[in-house]
Structure formats: structure tokens, C-alpha cells
């Protein structure tokens, strides 16, 4: 552990983050380091570790310090955790101060309490193969050991050849990724211009500068939808939906009739989401699309309604299933059996537990049922008061 130096944890200009993993505890040799559990970060140049609770406590070590490393599998039992053992070169003379002045061990361990060791080991292998720190130096001088070998026990010629091929592919992929990032940045600059333009338009609409027609406002909303820009101003006056959601609402009206009938006239919105998207296969609906479409049922005079219960649960229900009918039948069922829990009611009707609970709560709200709330569960009785 005396190879680590204190660090601010910020990446340098040429340094890229490769992978990070929470839940890592450091070991000085076989002893637990006098540090808590933290986040281990692997960059192209260093191994960095930061305390989860105290972000100021951050240490780093150049990858060039690593001679080789190996996995240590977890033992049997809940407590045993997989580790990576890292063997290190001696401390260089010009090392910056760190948490340990001196250590009797030439190796450290990373203990992965929240798993992730497989991926971390893989990435560490890649970085140690590529040695990207040799080609791009950091702005601060980093003490390096002599050129280290990669951590492998056997060095047959075949393996070196394969390693070279992997390194080649990695370099290509790297190039692709950096190109992708560059192109993405350029794209984002253009997108930002669109956002600013739309904000300017929205402000003018709000301040009623200039004459905007209904059509123009609706068109503007569809532009916002395409770009994924939220706009509270037009939402106030025109709602969140667009033509797209109108069409969607009609499609849903057709599609959900049969499933709703089968399920007692009511489905949780998450159920609808899964049903519809599984059926579509591609060009899926976003959760917001679904909600916005369902909000239009009433204005389109479709026989469905979006309804929000007090608990926050959102459902789609058939208009034909009136409130009174549901409550009356709930009361019948409960009276019949003397009392019912949500689970029992669900089994009786073939409904989900969530929705059957909402029905019982509704009947209770209307004064037809009363509850017996104990540790054994929530049970409903007919209200005799």
C-alpha cells in the first residue's frame, strides 16, 4: 500500500476513464488497509481509489507500478469475496506522499464486495496490454518503473501473437470511439442551438409577442417532441400531447378493449406498457408517450379512461365499468366471505393484487367497507356502522 499517493482523483488531459467499480476494499498484502470501502477507478494511466463517504480521501497509483496481477476466487460462504491480487515494483524514489509510509508487502489486493471483479480484471488486462500511458504522457511527472511484462504465467509464442491481434483491434476500436465522441460533440453543439431557439420562441409565446396561430403552436409542439425538448409554456395551454399521441390514443382504444374485458375492466398502466410494447416488438412507446396518449381518451370520446388512484397507481379502465358496479360487487364479495384481504380478493376475481387492493380501498373510501389493519395484514369487512 506504500505505492499509492494522495490524489485529487481528477483525470488528466490525455487520461481516460476505463471502468469504475463501487464496493471495493483495499488490502495491504493480506491485511485490510486502514481505509473504508470505496470506489476503484481504472484509467488508461492509473489505478485510483476513492472513499465513498469522504470524497477528499482519494489515492492513486500509476499502472506502470504493476508487475503482474491475478484473480483470487471467493471461497464458500456468504462472507467470502472475490479479489484481484496485484504485485508491484518497489517504491520509486520520487513518489509523492500517500496513506502508507512503508509496507512490508510487495502486493495489494482489491476486494470486490459488490462484485464486478470479472469486468475489472478484464479491463485491467487490456490496459496492461496496451500500456496507453507510455504513448500519452500526463501533465504531471509520473514515476515509472522499468517496462513491465503483462501479468501472464505462460509466455508461449502463440499467446503473444494473439495478444498483439487483440491490441490491434483495441487500437481500432479506440479510434472508432474517439471519432464517435468527436462527432457526438459536434452534433450536440447543433442540438444546443435548437434548444436555445425553441426557448426564445417559447418565451415569445408566453409574453404574447407576435401573433401565433393554433396551427403554428401545434407545429411547434411537434418540433419540441422530435428534439426531446420539454416546454412548460405550451403544455399549459395545449397539453402535452401532439397529433402523434392523438393517433396513438385511437390505436390504444382498439387494442386494449379485449385485454381490459379479460381483466375485469381495469389494467395498471405498467401492465399496459408491457403489453403494448411486447406486441409492437420495435418502435416502442416511451412511458411518457403512453401517459400522454391515455390523457386524450376523454377528449376523443373513446370508451377508456386514465385514472389515478390516491396511492399514485395509474390505471386504464373501461368506461362501461362504472364505479358503483365495482364497489357494489366488491361489497358483495366481502360480505359473502365475511372478510377479505387484497390477496384473497385478487384470487377470487383473477385480478392483480395491486388492483384488487385499489378496489377495496375505493369501497372503503365510499364507506361500504372498513379495515382491520394488523401485522397479519390488511383485511376488509363490510361496514356495519
Amino acid at each position, binding site marked *: 500500500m506504500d505505492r499509492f499517493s494522495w490524489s485529487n482523483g481528477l483525470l488528466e488531459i490525455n487520461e481516460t*476513464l476505463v471502468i469504475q467499480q*463501487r*464496493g471495493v476494499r483495499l488490502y495491504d498484502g493480506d491485511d485490510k488497509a486502514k481505509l473504508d*470501502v470505496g470506489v476503484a477507478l481504472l484509467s488508461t494511466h492509473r489505478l485510483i481509489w476513492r472513499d*465513498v463517504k469522504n470524497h477528499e480521501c482519494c489515492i492513486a497509483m500509476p499502472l506502470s507500478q504493476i508487475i503482474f496481477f491475478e484473480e483470487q476466487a471467493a471461497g464458500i*460462504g*456468504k462472507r467470502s469475496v472475490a479479489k484481484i491480487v496485484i504485485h508491484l515494483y518497489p517504491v520509486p524514489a520520487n513518489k509523492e506522499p500517500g496513506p502508507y509510509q512503508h509496507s512490508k508487502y510487495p502486493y495489494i489486493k482489491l476486494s470486490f464486495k*459488490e462484485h464486478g471483479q470479472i469486468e475489472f480484471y478484464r479491463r485491467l488486462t487490456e490496459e496492461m496490454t496496451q500500456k496507453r500511458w507510455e504513448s500519452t504522457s500526463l501533465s504531471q511527472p509520473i514515476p515509472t518503473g522499468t517496462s513491465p511484462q503483462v501479468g501472464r504465467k505462460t509466455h508461449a509464442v502463440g499467446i503473444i501473437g494473439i495478444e498483439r491481434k487483440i491490441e490491434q483491434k483495441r487500437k481500432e476500436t479506440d479510434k*472508432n*470511439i474517439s*471519432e*464517435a*465522441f468527436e462527432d*457526438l460533440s459536434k*452534433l*450536440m453543439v*447543433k*442540438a*444546443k*442551438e*435548437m*434548444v436555445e431557439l425553441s426557448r*426564445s*420562441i417559447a418565451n*415569445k409565446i408566453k409574453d404574447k*409577442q407576435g*401573433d*401565433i*396561430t*393554433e396551427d*403554428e*403552436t401545434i*407545429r411547434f409542439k411537434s418540433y419540441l*417532441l*422530435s*428534439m*426531446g*425538448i*420539454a416546454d412548460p409554456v405550451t403544455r399549459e395551454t395545449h397539453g402535452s400531447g*401532439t397529433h*402523434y399521441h392523438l393517433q396513438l390514443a385511437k390505436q390504444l382504444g382498439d387494442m386494449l378493449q379485449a385485454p381490459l374485458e379479460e381483466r375485469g375492466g381495469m389494467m*395498471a*398502466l405498467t401492465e399496459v*406498457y*408491457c403489453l403494448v*410494447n411486447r406486441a409492437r416488438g420495435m418502435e*416502442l*412507446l*416511451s*412511458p*411518457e*408517450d*403512453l401517459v400522454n396518449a391515455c390523457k386524450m381518451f376523454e377528449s376523443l370520446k373513446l370508451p377508456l379512461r386514465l385514472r389515478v388512484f390516491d396511492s*399514485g*397507481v395509474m390505471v386504464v379502465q373501461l368506461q362501461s365499468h362504472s364505479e358503483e358496479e365495482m364497489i357494489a360487487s366488491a361489497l358483495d364479495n366481502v360480505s359473502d366471505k365475511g372478510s377479505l384481504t387484497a390477496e384473497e380478493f385478487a384470487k377470487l376475481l383473477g385480478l392483480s393484487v395491486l388492483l384488487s387492493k385499489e378496489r377495496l380501498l375505493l369501497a372503503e373510501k365510499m364507506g361500504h367497507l372498513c379495515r382491520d*389493519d*394488523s*401485522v397479519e*395484514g*390488511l383485511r376488509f369487512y363490510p361496514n356495519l356502522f
Partner: protein
Amino acid sequence: MHRRGVGAGAIAKKKLAEAKYKERGNVLAEDQIVQMSKQLETFKSNLEEFASKHKQEIRKNPQFRVQFQEMCATIGVDPLASGKGFWSEMLGVGDFYYELGVQIIEVCLALKHRNGGLITLDELHQRVLKGRGKYAQDVSQDDLVRAIKKLKVMGNGFGMIPVGGSYLVQSVPAELNMDHTVVLQLAEKKGYVTVSEIRDSLKWEKERACHVLDHLLKEGLAWLDSQAAGEAQYWLPALFSELISRDVTPEEANQMTP
């Protein structure tokens, strides 16, 4: 909303307003909307070009997705707002996250009888990966978190509770306040907690501890082991590690709750 007036008077008035605007260097909103329409077309083709070169990157590379999402957030754009958005249509980001949303809902539903609607992000991650099969794209925990954030708009109480350096994902509308959360965090180390431990660590009175534990029992988030040596233990199935748990059927679960 205004409608453009008709008639000579209205036209004259409008021309005056336009002139005044252009004088002050302000552009009318309707002109800007036309401008936006043109810019949108340009942007769309830029995005198409980007997609033709880099669409794979988004699908295959979780780190790239994180960067992409963060950049969008920085400029004020939500690429996941609608399946009809450009981002979704051309980059396919939408389908990736919306399908993930479906998988998350299904996993949570399948396990609800066992853990009451509370599951660690780790376990959710493992089960989603398992469900997707070996040849599916890599899904990171960041991806799950973003998909869950989107699911929240559909009601149903999807939420995330920070616990022990990671999160518990809640998928039922159970009322969980700060007291409940802090007890969950306490229980995270061993998978269970006792009244004494709560009193020692949190310095609460017995009533407060019992009240919170009763609520967790009622919501099906905790199971009571009254036969434990010493004191009764309140176990949280959501925190059971894979190693020591086995799958429980709904019938067995019913028999276990007190």
C-alpha cells in the same frame, strides 16, 4: 390563443407591429418557427449521418451511452421522452431503454411475492442480464437507473432508495419515509435487523422502532423470525444474497408471513 384577425384594419395593425419588431431587431415568433423548421431538417440529416456511422456504438458500449445521456442532459434535451423523437427513431436509443423498462417491470413483478416489491439494484441487474440471454447487448447499472427514472411517470411507485453504496429499487407504491429508509440501510449489512440494533445504532425508543418494523411487515417487505436465538429478527428478502436464498412460490410466501 390569438387567431390572426382578418380585414384591412387587422392587416395594417400587423404590418405596423412587424415593422416595429424588425426595427428593434426582434424577430417575430412565427418567423422563428419557420427558421426552426428549417434548422430541424438540417439537424435531422446531421443525426442521420451520425447514426449511419455510430449507431452500433450506442448499442454496444455502455460508457458511450452514459456520455451521450449526460451530454443531452447538459444541453436540455431528453432523448427518451418519446418514441417519436429523432433520437429514438434514428439512433434507436429509445427502443433500447423502453425494452429495458419492460424487462425491469417483469422482473419486479415476478419477485414481488417474495420481496414485497423491493429489490437491490445488483439483483435486478443480474436477473435482467439473465433474462436477456448471452447474445443480447451489455446492460450497465447506469442503463437500469435511467430506464427506471422513465418508468416513474407511469405511477406505480417506481423509486430508488440509496442503501450501502448502491440502491434498492422499489416497484410498489408502499409509503416509505425517512424512518423506513434508514432502517433498511441498517439492515443492509446482514440482511436482517432487530429492535435492539435499531435502538443502539439510531437511538430510537422502542415504540418508534416497532412502528417502523410493523409497517415493513405489513407491506410484505420484511419477514419475522420470532424463533431466532435471543431476539426476534426482521429479515428483508430484498437483501438476501443469491448464495443463501432459493426461489419461493407465492403459496410458500403466504404461509411464511405471520
